[in-house]
């Protein structure tokens, strides 16, 4: 009994410490739909590369999902000029914004797959 209480307390402590040290972030990927549909941003992928919240927030992106896509300059050309994702995705810090298109642009089918957690509805005969 005592051992169970101690272990529970320890587990809670570890959890609290974990929360305090690790950056909390939304688990679900963000899929932008403007100006084009199906553009993926995954917090998880970026956190696993060792980035911290303040590297992007709130300098490049506000802490509200898809807020950036309301801006009229949220287009590839801005990224090439070092805005938004382009601050890092410039070919030096991370792969350049004008390469590997389909890495972020998962497309409409990719978005459906994310939503359904599996295959998109098969089109065709």
């Amino acid at each position, binding site marked *: 009994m005592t051992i169970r209480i101690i272990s529970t307390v320890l587990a809670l402590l570890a959890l609290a410490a974990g929360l305090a040290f690790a950056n909390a972030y939304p688990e679900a990927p963000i899929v932008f739909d403007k100006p084009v549909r199906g553009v993926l941003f995954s917090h998880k992928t970026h956190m696993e590369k060792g980035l911290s919240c303040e590297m992007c927030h709130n300098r490049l992106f506000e802490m509200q999902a898809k807020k950036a896509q309301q801006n009229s300059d949220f287009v590839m050309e801005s990224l090439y000029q070092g805005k938004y994702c382009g601050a890092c995705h410039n070919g030096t810090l991370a792969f350049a914004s004008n390469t590997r298109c*389909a890495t972020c*642009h998962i*497309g*409409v*089918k*990719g978005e459906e797959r994310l939503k359904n957690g599996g295959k998109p509805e098969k089109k*065709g*005969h």
Partner: protein
Amino acid sequence: MNKMDFNKLQNEGVENVPMQQRRDFLKMGLAITGIFAGGTLLSAASTFNKAQAADFAKKYPYSPHYSMVMRQDRCIDCERCMEACVATNHVPNVHGAYRTTILEKDTSDAIGSTKEFIPVLCNQCNLPQCTRVCPTKATYKDKTTGIVMMDIKKCIGCLTCQEGCPYNARYFNEEKKAVDKCNFCIDTRLARGEKDTACAHACPAGVRVFGDLSRQDSEVFKTVHQIEKAVWVLRPEAGTRPNVFYTKG
């Protein structure tokens, strides 16, 4: 020896030029057009256009010879092309009904991008299987543009053309009670003075380049006839000589 006056030289005719010499020049892309001063001077002209002309007419027998080049790596599957096509050509919102769609290809062990999007539509083949198998000639090659057309009044819905098409570019339209397919927007846009198809117009990434292959100054012609970048067609083994080409970069 005095300086020669070229204007006064007579062309002595090419009849006596030795065969070997003619061949040597032809290999350089030149045809001998005259000999002067007892054979010490030759005039020659490029054979490039002449040699190509015959081939060219065989290859691109239509005028305008409509074609599309897909810069495949730019495609991001935003599907604006598909939306534009549906809106322009009244494609019903039914499962499996499309005139153009986007295929996906995964190469999971690739470095960098692992996914490719491949836009597809009717390839408007020079030797189409669909027109060949159609029992009522409801589908045919347009004599001017080479576009594979549908005469829906003649279509009996036997779907043999679907079987024949190597590109899966045909669907049965329940509203028209006939097979429907891409016709490069000939009725909905080209006939109304537009210069491109709805899908090419809607693409934000410049994937789809629409143009006339019979014009050597067109972008499609220049892309297909260069050797710096690979250009290919889908399912070449079908032997239908498609007019939709693919490239990257």
